[in-house]
Structures are given as structure tokens and as C-alpha cells.
């Protein structure tokens, strides 16, 4: 089981691989993330389009409500959606928490027992499962990695080594 936050859904949908991800894995998320996807889908940009495509797959995703809200910690780096993912990861004992929020990464890693991974790692796993070819994974990664800010751009270049 893997828990995905809003940034992970948007990235994987931008890369046009979310359908493969939900076919290959048991994907769990929260109602808070669902709300964030609906809000994002209202924007007329690539992230908005991606959130809309993610919502089309919602039947394939296990959307849960958090039993104990106090389990999710909201900080300056962990937003409400991520906090709900922390809570659901703890409640379900999920093996992985997938996020593409680099800035929240240190706090998310400290908050859950689950292993935290980024969307490029999911792409690598799909290649290992023969669900994607190397070329498809690389193309998806490059599409996801477009339009990064100053902090993410060098991390993206470093991530590219995974696909070489």
C-alpha cells in the first residue's frame, strides 16, 4: 500500500502515468487531498489539467477519512493535505508515502514510519515491474520536471541520474 499526497498525484498525472500507478499499486489517499485536487483542477494550467485527470481516476483510488485528526501535524512546511497523509499512513501502516514536495520532505520523513519516496522513484519502480519502458519513464520524468523553481531545478538534474 502506498499513500500519495496532492503533489504526487499532480506530478504523476502531469507525467501521464497515474493510470499505470493505480493499476499497479494499492493507492490510498485522504478526503483532504481529494479537496485539494478539486481546488487545483479549477486552475487553467498544466497542474490544473493534471488534477482533473487524477480526479477521473478517483474510483480506482482508496480515499479515506482520517480517524484521528490530531495524528497529522501541520507545520510551516507540512500543509493540511500532507498532514492528513501522515495520519492515514500511520493508521493504515502503509509501506510508502509518495510526495513531490521537496520542502516538506525532511519533516515528512521524520513524521511517518512509512518510507517516503518521490515520483521519479515510482517511475523507476514501474520500470522494474515492466509496467513502463525505460524510455516511457524517462519521458514522464522530463515532463514532470519541467517548470521547477530554483531549489527544485538542481535536485531535478541530480534525479536525472536515476534514468541514465
Amino acid at each position: 500500500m502506498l499513500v500519495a499526497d496532492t503533489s504526487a498525484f499532480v506530478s504523476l498525472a502531469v507525467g501521464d502515468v497515474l493510470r499505470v500507478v493505480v493499476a499497479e499499486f494499492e493507492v490510498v489517499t485522504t478526503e483532504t487531498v481529494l479537496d485539494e485536487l478539486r481546488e487545483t483542477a479549477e486552475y487553467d494550467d498544466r497542474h490544473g489539467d493534471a488534477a482533473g485527470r487524477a480526479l477521473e481516476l478517483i474510483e480506482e483510488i482508496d480515499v479515506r477519512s482520517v480517524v484521528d485528526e490530531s495524528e497529522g501535524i501541520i507545520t510551516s512546511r507540512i500543509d493540511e493535505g500532507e498532514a492528513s497523509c501522515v495520519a492515514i499512513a500511520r493508521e493504515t501502516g502503509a509501506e510508502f508515502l509518495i510526495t513531490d514536495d521537496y520542502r516538506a520532505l525532511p519533516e515528512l520523513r521524520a513524521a511517518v514510519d512509512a518510507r517516503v519516496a518521490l515520483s521519479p522513484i515510482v517511475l523507476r519502480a514501474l520500470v522494474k515491474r515492466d509496467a513502463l519502458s525505460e524510455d516511457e519513464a524517462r519521458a514522464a520524468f522530463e515532463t514532470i520536471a519541467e517548470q521547477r523553481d530554483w531549489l527544485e531545478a538542481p535536485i531535478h538534474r541530480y534525479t536525472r541520474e536515476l534514468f541514465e
Partner: protein
Amino acid sequence: MSTKRVNFRLPEELVEQADVAAEVTHKDRTEILIEALRRYLAEIEDDEEFREAVVELYLDGTVGFDTLAEIVGRQDAEAVRASKELLDDGETLADDLADL
């Protein structure tokens, strides 16, 4: 603040200008140079391209975490360090994820 002696050569006209500035402001040449360098570093550290380049230097192992943190701030430095750790372990993580 501890100091360190360094040797470098400056163009003569810069030294002359620095000495004039020192005379006018009642400081010595060293104080003028320190202040100028501080201002320059503060300005360049606000520049995103510069910060991005420092992140690159950290990722390729040229500079350490403390240097990164001084320039981009501790929280962003921790984000970069966590990303690096995770990506360095990327193949193992992907293997384990693939086995789910």
C-alpha cells in the same frame, strides 16, 4: 568574530578608492574591504541563480551542508539534504516499491 589572514592582489585604483573611502568615513582599509565584501555577498546570496549553483555544489559534494545552510537557509538546506539522501538510495527504494 575570529579573523584569518589572507593575501591577495588588488588593482591599484581600487586600493586608492578604498583609501579615499577610508579617509572620508574614518575607517581603515580593512574595514572598507570587509564592508564591501559583506554587501556583495548579501546581494549575490539573494540571487536565485547563485543559490541554485550552490545547491549543485552541495549535490556533487563540493561544499558541505553547513555552507549550503549558510547560503540558502537551514530549512531549504535540509530539504536538499533529504532529497539527496533519498535519491542516493533511489534504486533500493524503487526495488522495494516494485516488490509491493
